[in-house]
């Protein structure tokens, strides 16, 4: 198979932790097959290719681009636009690109708050001058620019057209491999769809399930759940009921509730809404006051609990910016 004939692959890392990059390597020796199968044109952490090389390529000349991370800065957005233009198939790789993930929870704060924490109040900071990065700074050689930090973190899908989504924080190696081979073999689902199971984690969860009634929600540190029965039935907020299967119920297997990194199943408009609706429905009380108490005491941080991975992709996307006093 000649070099030229190899399909071109690009991997990019925007606003994310880097776990996705490691996940790619977690396919272990198969990575060699990847290398053999593809001509990797861009992968900042692994190969020495420059953005300008990409810019020089004709549009649509990259066959597959695995894009991880959300859109937090103007640079992220620029790269997203660029890689969209240059790629035939753009894959939102992992939770950050798909629905914002943990960085998306920053949408609960105002940009100014974030800066204050990062540049002024961080315990490890020494910044008496209160220096902040500036989008523009004049130097003898001329004007230098830094990317600007957006008010709101957006998902890749909210920024450019995305062909496929690969869920997970990070995606599991085997799912990555399935996706890659699918792309290679060319038998792909409809554009815009998520490559993964169409049911939820419960199906992969070995625990026994009964009808549900919840009188109190426990936080994970509040009790050690029994190993065999459904965590939710024990009052532990397990997101498995609403979360796309594919991980093999990793967390419940080790007696820890699903936190929802695979996001919602097909056709769901708002992941958190599914959880809220389902959990509220099985609260075992008809007294408004008691209901409020059960919710307040058991779920002190509702957004963090229901939208841990999907706030940026949720219908409201972020906390209100001009919050009234």
């Amino acid at each position, binding site marked *: 198979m000649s070099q030229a004939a190899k399909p071109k692959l690009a991997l990019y890392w925007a606003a994310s932790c880097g776990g996705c990059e490691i996940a790619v390597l977690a396919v272990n020796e198969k990575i060699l097959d990847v290398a053999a199968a593809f001509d990797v044109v861009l992968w900042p952490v692994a190969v020495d290719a420059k953005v300008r090389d990409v810019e020089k390529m004709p549009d649509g000349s990259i066959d597959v681009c695995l894009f991880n991370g959300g859109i937090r800065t*103007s640079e992220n957005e620029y790269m997203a636009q660029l890689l969209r233009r240059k790629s035939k198939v753009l894959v939102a790789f992992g939770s950050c690109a798909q629905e914002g993930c943990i960085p998306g929870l920053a949408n609960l704060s105002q940009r100014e708050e974030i800066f204050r924490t990062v540049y002024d109040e961080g315990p490890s900071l020494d910044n008496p001058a209160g220096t902040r990065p500036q*989008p*523009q700074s004049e130097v003898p050689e001329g004007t230098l620019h830094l990317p600007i930090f957006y008010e709101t973190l957006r998902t890749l899908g909210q920024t450019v057209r995305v062909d496929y989504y690969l869920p997970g924080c990070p995606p599991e190696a085997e799912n990555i491999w399935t996706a890659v081979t699918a792309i290679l073999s060319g038998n792909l689902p409809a554009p815009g769809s998520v490559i993964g199971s169409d049911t939820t984690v419960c199906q992969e969860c070995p625990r026994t399930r009964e009808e549900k009634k919840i009188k109190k929600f426990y936080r994970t540190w509040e009790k050690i759940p029994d190993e065999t029965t459904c965590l939710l039935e024990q009052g532990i907020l397990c997101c498995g009921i609403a979360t796309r299967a594919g991980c093999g119920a990793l967390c419940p297997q080790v007696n820890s509730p699903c936190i929802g990194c695979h996001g919602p199943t097909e056709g769901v408009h708002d992941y958190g809404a599914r959880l809220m609706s389902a*959990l509220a429905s099985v609260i075992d*009380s008809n007294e408004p006051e008691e209901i*409020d108490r059960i*919710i307040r005491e058991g779920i002190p941080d509702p957004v963090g609990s229901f939208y841990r991975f999907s706030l940026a992709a949720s219908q*409201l996307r972020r906390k209100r910016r001009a919050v009234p006093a």
Partner: protein
Amino acid sequence: MSDNPTFEPKILGFCCNWCSYRAADLAGTARIKYPTNVRIIRVMCSGRIDPTFVLNAFALGADAVMIAGCHPGECHYVDQNYKAMRRYGMLKHTLRQMGIEEGRFRLVWASAAEGQQLAEAITQMVDEVRKLGPLAWAANWQENGQRLEALEAIVHEHAEAMEVLA
């Protein structure tokens, strides 16, 4: 408080087929007047109301959302309105954290005979939301003007870099 007196809130109302929707019908037949701000959507039961609908309404620019069902214990489907009550509590809790005032999301009960009561509840809510002012949710997503400049700056710098190389 709204600084704009001419502000007419847009409120979405969800009514159950058996009690509250009929209460609204009764308000009509009895020619009871109330503000035009509420647009009613019919579902079979308040138990059908999915938080997704409420969030969707807010995201699409509703200033407030009202849910109306049969009185507790009088649900046409025995006790499904209690599920609505629970979801209301849950969603209210989340909306608080998202910065949406309680006055913008209400759950009211109205039996088929309570056209007057429903009309009053609507009037009251409209007044309250008028005071709260517009919500205009999507405005929260806007970046300030710097965004396009910044993108252009990157494009420009990269272009320069190319020239240097060339």
